[in-house]
């Protein structure tokens, strides 16, 4: 059973389009995250939700909007996609007992053309 699953795994789209990435975790974790990994492998946090409540919102363009319908799901919607949005997006989750021990999904490679 996949602990943190993201869909789709690959996403190729044109500039200006709107797209969503979905994430689900079956670990019973309370906190979920979105990280962006650039071409140089640098990982940077975008958002964090705890029990459906937004707790971290880094300096991310407001074209990016996370949504957490319940604590097992954290989706990422991106409006008006730009070339610079091309990256791998990772969803992760953690539980209070080990808040730094994230479980990551396998990533969504977004390519904007």
């Amino acid at each position, binding site marked *: 059973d996949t602990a943190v699953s993201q869909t789709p795994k690959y996403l190729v789209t044109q500039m200006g389009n709107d797209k969503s990435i979905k994430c689900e975790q079956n670990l019973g974790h309370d906190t979920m995250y979105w990280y962006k990994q650039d071409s140089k492998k640098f*990982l940077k*946090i975008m958002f964090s939700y*705890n029990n459906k409540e937004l707790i*971290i919102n880094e300096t991310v363009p407001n074209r990016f909007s996370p949504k957490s319908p319940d604590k097992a799901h954290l989706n990422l919607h991106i409006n008006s996609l730009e070339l610079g949005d091309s990256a791998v997006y990772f969803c992760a989750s953690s539980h209070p007992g080990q808040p*730094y021990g*994230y*479980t*990551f999904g*396998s*990533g969504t490679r977004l390519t904007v053309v």
Partner: protein
Amino acid sequence: GESVGLHLPTLSVQEGDNSIINCAYSNSASDYFIWYKQESGKGPQFIIDIRSNMDKRQGQRVTVLLNKTVKHLSLQIAATQPGDSAVYFCAEYPNRDDKIIFGKGTRLHILP
């Protein structure tokens, strides 16, 4: 800016030898330091952590050393195997804001 960085972007090690991956950090107030491993096409995977009040912690074939005097963190992998090929990230957890700050990553190549 980010406070966690690595000395070497790429490390090549003979299979069977020990690997040492180094990391420098600047935030003395971080509560935990963590190592993650990212294999090709996968998400990062937690390897081992060390609390700031410790200087050494051992796991299975891995040892993390923390030198707070010089703000240095290292990951030692014993008897390196082909399956150890990956990008390794050091990270810090400041115990606030509930987020991990990742360093830039070191790619470990295993030579046959």
